[in-house]
Structures are given as structure tokens and as C-alpha cells.
């Protein structure tokens, strides 16, 4: 009989756990109480059939503004790119210490035992650089992913991450983001070398709309203080109707139907997305509910009820725009990704991202490349004579025809 054998010792072993041991609430009575997301709300999450809830939370690397595992690498092999904020592991510099695996609170660094190097989500940077969405976004059947760029103040990252109160981290991180509509911000961006079309893409960014303008997207576990940059819109869920007598009769014109009686406890969502601050979650769920109520009134009854929008602090136009973005957005509205400018590539080779060990007297110097004038081919974008004269040298694959004016 093929009994499980350990691949490390060769001896028989009895399996006690695995990477997905508790998939779909398997073994729930034993595994669920250990879930750190339930801290403080154990009595609310009842392990009974009537109260069972599940929802998907797909996670990729957060590409944090303050990535903790970048600081934990003794070799300085990890870095956050200057040009687009993608956090990467330099496969040449990695020495297999594996402190990064411990250092990432989202556990998104994986160690490859065959190559001896750490690997992680690269945000599909070869695709992002030519304006294509990541594979996870492209293949998303539910079309629930949005990609866009956000301008932020890099100098205040440390200050934002150091806010003493955990519940203040959300606002602190929102305070880092700069308004691309502000001409002063655009002028400063231009001075800092951000190309004009990138600034235009920042204005059209769906991420900016959902997270900053409409404030319905929230960072995952902000209390880790890494200032994560993959945000989630919390889900509405059905209203629990435990007993017929005690049942909730859904009145479709009732705009805020018992938000605290939704199947997914509000406090659970708060532990995931708001450092335990349930009011933040309620605010988001109210906006989503208001959007539904407003659109229902408009489409079923033909009425436009501005009071619904005002009740959640938004304008009707914003509510409709949010609806279009969340419900019926087209491919080019969901993925607003500017292409990398190859004429700026030489500048990037001279100014790589820094790592935490780049101080004076430290090991530092992760990835600084010699100048192209040395005559060494650093990458295919540059030649012995320097960067190609104009235009792009990268092949553009499967690109939609360019719209005029972009």
C-alpha cells in the first residue's frame, strides 16, 4: 500500500497537516479557533451550519510601500523598483538566507529548494512594462481585478507607517497618495521625472477611483504596518434568516438592510481589512448598498434619488461612476497601465532601488549597474552606443490598437 513517506527522511509518516489542510472549512472545529483573524470575535463566528460562511480572498504580493522583508535580507537581494514600485528578488544576489520568508507578514515569498533562491510575485513586470495586465488580472473570470497607478509621497512613508494607533494606519496611508488632478502635484511629478502619459494614466486609474475617491477599497491587514498596495472591496453577503419568526423581511426600498446581520460578520471583515475598526467596514458596506439601491431605483422605477447618494457622502454622479466601474467596466477601464519609457531606461540603470542595507559603512549597493559607457551590454534595451534613438525597442505583444490621444 502506498502510505505517505517523508521526502526528507524516507520514513513513513502520518499526515497531520498540509498547505491546504483546512480547505473549504475542512476540520473546522479544530482549525478555525486558531485563526488569528478571529481574535476578539470568537463568539460571533459560530461553527454551526446555519452560520457557516466562506468567501474567496485571492492574494498576491502586496508590493508594499514599506516592505518588511526587503529589510530582512542580509544580502540586500530584494528591492522595490523606483519606476513602478514592483518589489522583486534579485536572483543573482540572493544567497538563500530565507529571512525574507519569515519577514513577509503576508507570506508571499517562496523559497525554491531546487534553485536555492527566493521567489515571489513579480507583478508580471514584463507585461506591465508594455502595458499589459498581470496574468492573474487578465485571466480573472469574474473581472473583479483592477490595475492602475497611484502617485504617492515616498518621503513620508516612514512617518505613515509609524502612526501609533493601528486604526490610524488606513488614513495615514491614504494621506500618502497624491491627487493627480492637482496641477501642483502634476508639476512636481514632471520635475521628478515621471513621464506625462504616466500622469494621465494616474488620473484615469481605477485603483485611485475605488480606493481614494470612492473609498470602497481597503488594505489587507494594515496593522502589519507595511503599507500594502493591493486593496480589497469587502463583500456584501446575504442577510442571515435564522428563524422564520425572527426572520428579516427584505424590503428592497430599505437602503441599509441590517448591515450587522449579514452572513459575514462585520467584525470579521474589520479584522481583515481595517485593523478591527468595524465602522470603516460599515461605511464601505453602506456605500455599496447605497449604490445598489440607487441603481435599482433608477433602473426599475425610473427614478433618480439623490438623497441615497447624499446619505453616504457621495454625489449621484460618483455613485453611477462607481457602479459602472464595479459592474460593467470594460477591459481598458479596469486595466489602466502605462507603458515603460525605454528612453528612460538608461537613467534607471544608474539609479536602482535601494535596500535597507544601503547606508554608509553597510554592505549595501544592491544591484547598481556599471554605466553603459563601459561598453558592457547590461540588457537588450541598451547598446554599446547607448540607448536606442527613439521609440520602443521592446516587442509589443497582443496589444490593442492604440487609441488616438494616448
Amino acid at each position, binding site marked *: *500500500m*502506498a*502510505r*505517505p513517506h517523508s521526502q526528507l527522511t524516507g520514513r513513513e509518516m502520518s*499526515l*497531520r497537516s*498540509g*498547505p*491546504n*489542510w483546512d*480547505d*473549504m*472549512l*475542512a*476540520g*473546522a*472545529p*479544530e482549525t478555525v479557533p486558531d485563526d488569528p483573524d478571529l481574535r476578539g470575535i470568537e463568539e460571533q463566528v459560530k*461553527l*454551526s*451550519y446555519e452560520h*457557516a460562511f*466562506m468567501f474567496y480572498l485571492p492574494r498576491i504580493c502586496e508590493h508594499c510601500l514599506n516592505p518588511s522583508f526587503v529589510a530582512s535580507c542580509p544580502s540586500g537581494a530584494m528591492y522595490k523598483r523606483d519606476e513602478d514600485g514592483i518589489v522583486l528578488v534579485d536572483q543573482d544576489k540572493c544567497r538563500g538566507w530565507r529571512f525574507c520568508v519569515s519577514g513577509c507578514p503576508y507570506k508571499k515569498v517562496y523559497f525554491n529548494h531546487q534553485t536555492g533562491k527566493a521567489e515571489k510575485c513579480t507583478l508580471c513586470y514584463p507585461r506591465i512594462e508594455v502595458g499589459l495586465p498581470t496574468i492573474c488580472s487578465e485571466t480573472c473570470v469574474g473581472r473583479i481585478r483592477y490595475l492602475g497607478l497611484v502617485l504617492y509621497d515616498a518621503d513620508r512613508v516612514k512617518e505613515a507607517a509609524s502612526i501609533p494607533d493601528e486604526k490610524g494606519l488606513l488614513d495615514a496611508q491614504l494621506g500618502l497618495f497624491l491627487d493627480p488632478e492637482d496641477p501642483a502635484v502634476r508639476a512636481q511629478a514632471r520635475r521628478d521625472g515621471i513621464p506625462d502619459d504616466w500622469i494621465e494614466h494616474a488620473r484615469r486609474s481605477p485603483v485611485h477611483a475605488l480606493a481614494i475617491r470612492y473609498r470602497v477599497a481597503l488594505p489587507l491587514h494594515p496593522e502589519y504596518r507595511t503599507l500594502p498596495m493591493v486593496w480589497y472591496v469587502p463583500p456584501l453577503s446575504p442577510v442571515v434568516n435564522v428563524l422564520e419568526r425572527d426572520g428579516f423581511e427584505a424590503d428592497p426600498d430599505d437602503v441599509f438592510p441590517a448591515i450587522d446581520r449579514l452572513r459575514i460578520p462585520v467584525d470579521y471583515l474589520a479584522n481583515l481589512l481595517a485593523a478591527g475598526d468595524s465602522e470603516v467596514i460599515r461605511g464601505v458596506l453602506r456605500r455599496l448598498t447605497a449604490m445598489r439601491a440607487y441603481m435599482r431605483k433608477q433602473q426599475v422605477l425610473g427614478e433618480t434619488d439623490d438623497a441615497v447618494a447624499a446619505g453616504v457622502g457621495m454625489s449621484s454622479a460618483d455613485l453611477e461612476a462607481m457602479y459602472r466601474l464595479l459592474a460593467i467596466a470594460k477591459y481598458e477601464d479596469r486595466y489602466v497601465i502605462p507603458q515603460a519609457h525605454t528612453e528612460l531606461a538608461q537613467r534607471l540603470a544608474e539609479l536602482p532601488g535601494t535596500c535597507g542595507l544601503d547606508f554608509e559603512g553597510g554592505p549595501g549597493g544592491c544591484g547598481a549597474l556599471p554605466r553603459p559607457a563601459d561598453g558592457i551590454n547590461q540588457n537588450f534595451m541598451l547598446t554599446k552606443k547607448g540607448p536606442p534613438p527613439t521609440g520602443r525597442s521592446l516587442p509589443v505583444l497582443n496589444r490593442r490598437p492604440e487609441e488616438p490621444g494616448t
Partner: protein
Amino acid sequence: MSRAGSITLRYLTPHSKWSIHSEYQDNLHLLTLFRGGPVIWISVEDAAAIEVRDNDWVEAFNRNGVIACRAVVTHRLPRGVCMMYHAKDRHVNVPLTELSGNRGGMDNSLTRIVWKPTHLVGGYAQLSFGFNYYGPTGSQRDDLRKLLTIFWNPDLPTIDDY
């Protein structure tokens, strides 16, 4: 036929998450995504009634057949229902069953073939009758007589005992 430490339940066979029928039942990658072998899901109350803990070996039997598999205890199921994900693979990583002395068994061990008129239509090209050609359909799982009994046996004999 009931034994001590057994319980009678209704039996569901939905489609599995980490395999496609018999495919990927031998793929190590996909086996690590769950428990690595055949499992049957039972509710918390039913598991408590027969003192089965998560990941214990159980035998599931009715008058059609018997399966040796591990139990997964969850509150996702209501009392009185058990679930085994659909798979058509001969399992080599399970012990012999007490009842039959044979290894394995899978979800269809407990169902049986029942013809219905729609199986007999056609008679041309591929639309012809073949024994179980269209697979066990809903008609073969709905039989109220196919109630399932689970028997907890921690010491199922293995090949080393012979």
C-alpha cells in the same frame, strides 16, 4: 445492518475541487492541496455521535459496496448528510476494508446503475446504449434506500498483516 460506532446518513457526491473525475488523483501537486487521498465529509454532530475525529479512517458502506477513506469533519454540512467528492480512481493509498477485505472503493461503490429510458434512446453513432456509458446519473444517486452507514475502524488491516 448497523454496527456499534456507526451512523446512517444521506449521501451526496458533488464534484471535487482538486481533481477532474479520476484525473489528478495521482498527481502529487494536487494531492497536497488537500488531504492526499479519498475523504468523506461528515458534520460535526455526526462525527461526535460515532466518536470520529478529523482525519480518522472510516469505512462507508451500504448494501452496494464499501469505501475506505478518511473522515473530514466540518460544520459546512448539516446533521444527517455526508458528502464524498466525485472521483473515479482506484486508490492505492488506502488500507483494506474490514467488510470486504479489498482495498479502496470510491464514491460510486455506494451507488448502482439504474437504467432510465433516456439511456436507451438513439441507436445510431455514439448515441447508443453502452453499459454505464453516460455514467452514474442523478437517478442512481437519488434512491432513498441508499442510505449510508459509516463505521469507524481505527485498525483497518493493511498488507503488512498478511
